[in-house]
């Protein structure tokens, strides 16, 4: 089965990459803030992987979407540092969903990261301004 699947996958990945190539640099910049973006989404209410990613897509009008691997990797890091905690939902139908909720430490981290970003943004704006 995997033998018949992988050629399709490779083809798709290549096409996907060429599509998003033009925003590769932006993605790099954004990726550094993955954890803060996740924390921001969890501030309002507990959520799960797909819901967070969908909301990112909607907010950016389909210009940005996290890869699942990137997303879960960030979840694990955040959980390890105690910024978020997770629990399994009790869906009556289908597979169980893993929900994440932000902790007190997570809120503090979010505020600090946001402050850092505001400052960075201001500095870069100043530096990139035409003389």
């Amino acid at each position, binding site marked *: 089965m995997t033998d018949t699947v992988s050629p399709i996958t490779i083809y798709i990945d290549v096409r996907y990459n060429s599509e998003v190539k033009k925003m590769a640099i932006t993605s790099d910049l954004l990726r550094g803030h993955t954890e803060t973006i996740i924390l921001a989404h969890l501030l309002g209410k507990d959520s799960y992987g*797909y819901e967070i990613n969908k909301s990112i897509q909607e907010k950016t009008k389909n210009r940005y979407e996290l890869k*699942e*691997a990137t997303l879960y990797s960030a979840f694990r890091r955040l959980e*390890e540092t105690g910024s978020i905690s997770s629990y399994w939902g009790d869906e009556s139908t289908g597979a169980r969903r893993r929900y994440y909720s932000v902790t007190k430490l997570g809120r503090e981290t979010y505020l600090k990261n946001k402050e850092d970003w505001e400052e960075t943004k201001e500095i870069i704006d100043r530096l990139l301004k035409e003389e």
Partner: protein
Amino acid sequence: MNMNERIRTHVEGLFEGAPMTRKILDLKEELLANLNSKYDDLVAGGTSPDDAYRTVIAGIGDVSELVRQIQNESAFNKSIPSSARKRSAIFVSVAVALYILAPFSAILVTGNMGPFFMFLLIAVATGLLIYNGMTSPKYIKEEDSIVEDFKEWKSGTNEKKTFRKTLSLILWSLIVIVYFAINFFFFAWAYSWLIFIIGVFCEGVISLVLDMKKR
């Protein structure tokens, strides 16, 4: 084939070779639930099943890094607290030193107090060993897998065994103390050896009682 099945097969393929730990299985379940929701949303939005499948698969990205990250986490948890081991080593060394010193105190301190000091030292040393045996950390479960459950179970039975051993140690130390005490104070050398036979009997009764309690 059902599309959800196709997604599952693909995900299984991605995790081929990864250890079947609880964390990996959890990750797989989480991933599958989210991928299926995404697929359903795409199809509901008018995307053809094949395109939806391709979009979902392409969105996964490289999971190998993630798998490695999870494995490192469990490797990190594995490290045994060295402070506990150090503490245990100190207890045992002190106890052994006291055992060695015990006969000397009997020789050096004259009069009836000699044997008393000897038994006191033995008692303290035995107490140390028992305390150490009871408080040493047992195996901490690091993964919710069958292997880990087995390790914990085994560690648990070992703990029971250590308990038995310390109990037996206390019993026989007491017997030796009483044996010498009887001899020194009552000079009953001819009959005092019987206490060892009583000791064997006592141990038998204790293990019988413990076995019955377990059931």
